């Protein structure tokens, strides 16, 4: 029988290694797998490469806290501003940064999940983010080659999950979560609600269970309200 639900955070985090590439879902304060990050902090892995849209927010929670604790050696993101912990370490030269345009970031992970090792895109062509990248004219337009971005681990926040790992999300909590679920070798989900198998309509499942390895029930309620 397939049962991907785990009862403890220790089980959820089992096997994450130092140096892992960790994909962290969420956008703004919505859809952030903060309980899983707390679990990862407890678990102890360090020297991580974190991939997320932002470099965390507050140094007291979630990715910001992971960074503040010095666990992240490299950040891959589109918008690192607004994270005091990141900015401090970045200025001190103790964290590396790879800036990726937001759409390229999403597409690189979708490519990883879909078996596409590299693809051409117009985004960033002719800018300094194209430095060192293969460039090609196709039908009169300039494109650059971007590569798939795989995660050793993906941390995902869902609204509902069942024991097969089928997932739905809530409103804009969807964001990067389904894309990262596809791109992670080990995809770990915190879900607000658990459903019986079959309770989620097959037509509305956003992430089919085959992309998911572990699910833990974390009914935390609403995200904080940003201004």
């Amino acid at each position: 029988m397939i049962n991907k639900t785990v009862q403890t955070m220790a089980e959820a985090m089992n096997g994450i290694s130092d140096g892992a590439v960790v994909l962290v879902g969420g956008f703004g304060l919505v859809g952030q797998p903060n309980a899983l990050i707390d679990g990862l902090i407890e678990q102890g892995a360090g020297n991580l490469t974190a991939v997320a849209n932002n470099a965390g927010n507050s140094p007291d929670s979630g990715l910001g806290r992971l960074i503040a604790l010095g666990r992240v050696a490299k950040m891959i993101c589109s918008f690192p501003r607004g994270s005091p912990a990141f900015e401090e370490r970045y200025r001190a030269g103790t964290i590396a940064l790879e800036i990726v345009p937001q759409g390229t970031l999403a597409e690189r992970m979708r490519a990883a999940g879909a078996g596409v090792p590299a693809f051409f895109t117009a985004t960033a062509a002719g800018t300094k983010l194209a430095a060192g990248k293969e460039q090609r004219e196709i039908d009169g337009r300039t494109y650059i080659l971007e590569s798939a971005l795989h995660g050793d681990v993906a941390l995902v926040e869902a609204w509902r999950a069942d024991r097969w790992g089928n997932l739905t999300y809530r409103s804009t909590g969807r964001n990067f979560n389904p894309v990262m679920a596809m791109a992670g070798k080990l995809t770990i989900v915190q879900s607000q609600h658990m459903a019986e198998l079959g309770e989620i309509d097959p037509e509305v499942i956003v992430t089919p269970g085959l992309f998911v390895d572990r699910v833990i029930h974390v009914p935390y309620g609403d995200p904080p309200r940003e201004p």
Partner: protein
Amino acid sequence: MADTATSFKPLSRNGMAARVAIDIPDGWYVNLGIGVPTLVADHVPADREVVVHSENGLLGMGPAPTPDNADPWIINAGKQMVTMRTGASLVHHADSFAMIRGGHLDLCVLGAYEVAENGDIANWATSENDSAPAVGGAMDLAVGAKNLWVMMEHVTKDGRPRLVERCSYPLTAKAAVKRVYTNLAVIDITPFGFVVRDMVAGLTFDELQARTDAKLAQSN
């Protein structure tokens, strides 16, 4: 260069937003960049349906909520709470950027530091900026939308022109901007460079040229 001695009145931010809004046709799909462009949504004429896209997977964004209908799960790309309009749909980030990068948006309105007469845009990093560079979705939006319009003050706080022959800041995209809305004028980017389409009342062409780095042409 102080504008106080002259007889024209620069547009306020809401005035600029209203000026942009009247140029958006009924039925367009539009992404409004973080900051001033966001204000455009409030000025779309009531008889037009304009569908606003937010990069974080919301198509059909509505105005800010009242305290009664605030839902912290519904935010926009600027991470502010918003509402969903009747007819809205939700997608994940790769699908949301497929809308942008696949050329499905009719319009994107972005803020910028500089726009060059060849349509180059610089809006994500300045040389003075010593904090981490942050691009967000601007590069995707700039190359993806069918039309890229820029909204910005005509000159910087210390009076330097923002419409330039060539951008001095790192580019967001090359040859991408089609039109610029400033607090002084509306200017098209054409194969012949900047062409003035509209100016605030009381402003002369020469006064506008004096505040612009690149050469302006007058529209016929």
